[in-house]
């Protein structure tokens, strides 16, 4: 070490038992090839990758099998040679337990590499020190490098720091979570690659110095890095800094505070302080990519916990099933079996072991009940303040807990809920064993939903105002038309003509059905989009580092959800139209061509035209892509109205007794028909709304009971309540739009 780095302490923090010895006492082993590799297209924050292979294709090790989709995305490579056996939805390791599209490879056992070479050779450069920065970034992107410590943010994207001038690169080798030793072993055995990665990163960022923060419980790793520094002759730019062991020193924000004394502004990014933070594993992967052209196809994963006999670190191909890795390690399922991906503080418990290892899988922890007892039922908060003392973000966890419990979300937000990094230190020290983090996640989710709803309401207001304007305009137009019509009727009185009135109606049926199909397709597409966005959002929520992406995802989600609602309404309307069309065409009591019936037909057609126009206007305001379809619909409907009207007028003229009186009334009748149609709808909605409110109340009660009694079902009930609240919000939104008609 050449520079004396002044260390700073972050507030709070805890010292849980480290439990690292079990897994760091033997070298990294290479995991054997499993019978299949499952590669989720979405292992990173951002858009999922797009497959470029088909089932049955043979691929070589390192071959691109999926391309990035958009800027924030990463490609995927075949971890070994073999055959693509499936591209299908599989369950992926994610807290939400969702399924996602995965590419499944059946290895051929040859492990044949695709041709690959270092960037320097590929460019034919003499001096490998002056590879252009854009080429480096391109290589990092092409090799699918994504953050290997946190949630997997595509590294190339993180290195685009825009207008921020970066002076310090921080490599995170703290590895503060108990049990995990993957980075420790990587630094011991691949110190040279880590330093090389740091060199490349420094070049890309144009930064002057690099600080590698390592907790003082990893002396071997520190020694290895120091040696490598000397080898690379980099003592002047890069410092290996030993930091005190304290959880969560490896949190990005905390590590920055320890090493620089600066705090990342709330809601901001480290780049605004001139700092970029990367995991040591990512740095090593970058070195491999740049110097050898090896994409990110394997990683080091710790397998530990008393339920495995053979604890240690494995170099494992991405896509290897967790069950394979566990059985290599001599896994003996224990009572109250748990397998945690990640560490005991922030990892998540897997629902099954049939899930693949992904880019961010740093640890598989299979504890026994004795080793990590599951929590006892929570007791009441005694406001002892231990949680506040432990919180590294200087929050007041117990206040956040009370606010979350009382659903006083605005107060929770005011108490900086969103600065919570979900490190779990508060839950760890809480003597009442309250699952505090779970409450914070719940509140954060609820607040995000609330925000989305507020945005929706604002949009609804804009739409409403647009509608009022339009209605004024239409009224004026209608009045003008009515006058014109009256005159025309008077003129045409002498001319008697039969119009094929009934014809107009059957034509509506196929048209409506076609509309319906189209709408349903759109709905399906939108729903798929929502599912994807939700997953992304979940991923972002999981990773405190990516919290800044969340609002973007959320607003995207809210928009698509909005679209779904409009579409659903459209579909309902289209279905009605499709149903009523044949009914109207069918045999009727009385004369189908009587003036009354024709008048009614005309009125319904006109009313339908109204709705169609409204929907079109709404879609236009929203900028929805249904606009074209809707416009076509409106045109058709206009034709229908015209037809019905002429049929009616014709019949009217044949019936001299009715004369102009009726046609004078037609305008007013028209509007009343509209309101009558709207009323039952609104009433029904109101009923539904009340019923839903009831349901929400009940769900809340049940949840409260469960909480008070510390039952296990709390989580499930919370989910249920959220769903009910969602539904309620949907009804309310619907009611507010209907109410405005």
């Amino acid at each position, binding site marked *: 070490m050449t520079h004396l780095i002044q260390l700073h302490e972050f507030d709070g923090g*805890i010292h*849980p038992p480290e439990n690292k010895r079990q897994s760091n006492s033997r070298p990294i082993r290479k995991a054997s090839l499993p019978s299949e590799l499952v590669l989720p297209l979405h292992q990173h924050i951002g858009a999922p990758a797009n497959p470029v292979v088909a089932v049955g294709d043979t691929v070589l090790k390192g071959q691109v099998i999926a391309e990035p989709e958009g800027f924030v995305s990463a490609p995927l490579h075949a971890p070994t040679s073999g055959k693509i056996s499936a591209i299908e939805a599989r369950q992926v390791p994610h807290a939400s337990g969702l399924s996602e599209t995965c590419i499944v490879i059946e290895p051929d056992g040859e492990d044949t590499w695709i041709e690959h070479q270092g960037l320097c050779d590929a460019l034919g450069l003499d001096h490998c020190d002056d590879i252009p920065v854009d080429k480096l970034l391109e290589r990092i992107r092409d090799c699918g490098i994504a953050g290997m410590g946190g949630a997997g943010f595509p590294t190339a994207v993180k290195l685009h720091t825009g207008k921020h001038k970066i002076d310090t690169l921080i490599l995170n080798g703290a590895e503060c979570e108990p049990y995990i030793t993957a980075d420790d072993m990587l630094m011991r055995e691949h110190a040279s690659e880590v330093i090389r990665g740091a060199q490349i990163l420094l070049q890309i960022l144009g930064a002057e110095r690099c600080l590698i923060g390592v907790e003082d419980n990893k002396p071997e790793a520190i020694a290895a890095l120091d040696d490598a520094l000397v080898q690379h002759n980099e003592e002047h730019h890069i410092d290996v800094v030993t930091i005190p062991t304290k959880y969560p020193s490896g949190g990005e924000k905390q590590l920055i505070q320890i090493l620089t004394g600066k705090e990342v502004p*709330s809601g901001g990014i480290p780049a605004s302080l001139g700092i970029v933070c990367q995991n040591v594993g990512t740095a090593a992967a970058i070195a491999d990519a740049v110097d050898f052209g090896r994409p990110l196809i394997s990683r080091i994963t710790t397998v530990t916990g008393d339920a495995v006999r053979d604890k240690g670190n494995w170099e494992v191909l991405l896509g290897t099933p967790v069950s394979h890795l566990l059985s290599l390690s001599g896994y003996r399922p224990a009572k109250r079996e748990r397998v945690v991906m990640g560490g005991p503080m*922030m990892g998540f418990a897997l629902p099954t072991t049939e899930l693949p290892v992904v880019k961010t899988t740093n640890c598989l922890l299979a504890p026994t009940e004795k080793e990590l007892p599951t929590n006892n*039922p929570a007791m009441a908060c005694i406001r002892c303040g*231990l949680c506040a003392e432990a919180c590294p973000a200087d929050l007041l966890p117990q206040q956040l807990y009370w606010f979350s419990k009382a659903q006083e979300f605005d107060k929770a937000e005011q108490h900086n809920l969103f600065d919570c990094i979900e490190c779990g230190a508060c839950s760890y020290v*809480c003597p009442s064993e309250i699952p505090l*983090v779970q409450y914070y996640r719940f509140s954060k989710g609820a607040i995000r939903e609330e925000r989305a709803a507020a945005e929706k309401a604002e949009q609804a207001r804009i739409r409403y105002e647009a509608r009022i304007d339009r209605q004024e305009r239409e009224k004026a137009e209608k009045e003008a038309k009515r006058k014109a019509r009256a005159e025309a009727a008077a003129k045409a009185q002498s001319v008697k003509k039969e119009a094929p009135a009934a014809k107009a109606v059957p034509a509506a049926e196929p048209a409506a059905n076609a509309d319906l199909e189209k709408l349903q397709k759109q709905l399906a597409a939108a729903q798929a989009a929502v599912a994807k966005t939700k997953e992304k959002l979940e991923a972002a929520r999981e990773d405190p580092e990516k919290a800044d992406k969340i609002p973007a995802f959320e607003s995207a989600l809210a928009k698509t959800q909005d679209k779904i609602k409009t579409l659903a309404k459209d579909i309902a309307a289209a279905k009605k139209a499709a149903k009523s069309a044949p009914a109207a065409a069918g045999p009727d009591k009385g004369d189908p061509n009587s003036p009354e019936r024709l008048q009614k037909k005309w009125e319904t057609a006109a009313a339908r035209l109204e709705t169609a126009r409204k929907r079109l206007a709404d879609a236009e305001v929203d900028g929805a892509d249904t606009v074209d379809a809707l416009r076509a619909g409106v045109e058709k409907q206009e034709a229908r109205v015209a037809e019905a009207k002429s049929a009616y007028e014709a019949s009217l003229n044949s019936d001299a007794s009715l004369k102009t009186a009726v046609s004078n009334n037609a305008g007013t009748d028209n509007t009343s028909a509209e309101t009558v149609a709207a009323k039952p709808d609104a009433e029904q909605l109101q009923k539904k709304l009340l019923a839903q409110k009831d349901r929400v109340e009940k769900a809340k009660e049940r949840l409260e009971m469960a909480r008070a009694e510390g039952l296990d079902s709390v989580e499930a009930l919370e989910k249920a309540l959220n769903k009910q609240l969602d539904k309620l919000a949907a009804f309310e939104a619907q009611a507010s739009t209907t109410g405005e008609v």
Partner: protein
Amino acid sequence: MALLTLSSPHTHGPNRTSRIMLTVALATLPGLAVMTWFFGFGSLINTVLAIITALASEALVLKLRKYPVSFFLKDNTALVTGLLLGLALPPLAPWWITVLATSFAIIFAKQIYGGMGNNPFNPAMVGYALVLISFPVQMTTNWVTSFQVSGSDVAGFTDALSIIFAGASSTADAFTGATPLDQYKYLISKETSDELLQRNTFNGWLNGGWEWVNLAFLAGGLFLMVRRIITWHIPVSMLAALGICSLILGWDEDLYTPLSLHLLSGATMLGAFFIATDPVSASTTPTGKLIYGAGIGILLYVIRTWGAYPDAVAFAVLLMNFAAPFIDAYTQPRSYGHSKPKRGLKPGEKS
């Protein structure tokens, strides 16, 4: 294969509420022992009675509310409430005072508000205030002069029992009376400080017994601090505020109760380390705790000096309980990444 899926963290530290409460209870034992040594078995009997009443009332309410009784009784909070009340009441208070105060504390001051953790006021002090207001005579005359001082040998267990349960006042009159604070306050206008201190209650410096009781509670409190169960903020700011008031306003011993008496008599130390620090009803932010403690110290001095009651820990604590939520809202710490702390409860602009 279905695995157990629980939310993170998957590990938990050694802290347990029941253990914390038990430690608090243990930390009062030196005080209780010294009380028994100087003032007889009254306190011990009352304390046991209060604990039994507390547990029984808690069990009753939990049963009525259909909560798992043993699960919540195990948190030991009712135990501590009963214990503190037993320690705070006069040693020879009649049994029904103890039972009334304790059951009221548990049922009305704690469970009515939703049980443990939800009570805005310190239950023990609510119970204490109730009986102090309702039965001022019994609450101010059943204090005992140290047997070690009076040399009386009626300190026996059975005597205490008969006084507490049968109201055998004839035997009691021999050694019961007002507290030192009470005596000093009302006699200082007639006697000089030196004369006063020769009375049996005081018996000179460090000879009345109650100084030792307070020192024993101080020791217990320090033990809790070392065990990190309470922080220094509330006791220190409370005692400092009391001391400063006494030095500035009551420096003349011949007119006002002296500092030593303020600090080492009455329920001062019990209040500072065991009652004011009751986390549920106190302030929770570091700055908030300082304000809260200081508020209690000042109120304590004001009521003791100018109020109608000789001691005032209960009232001072209850008054500050009112203010605690407000204090908390305005003393939030500055969170990581924020340039300044948030204030109040209204969602304001970003800071």
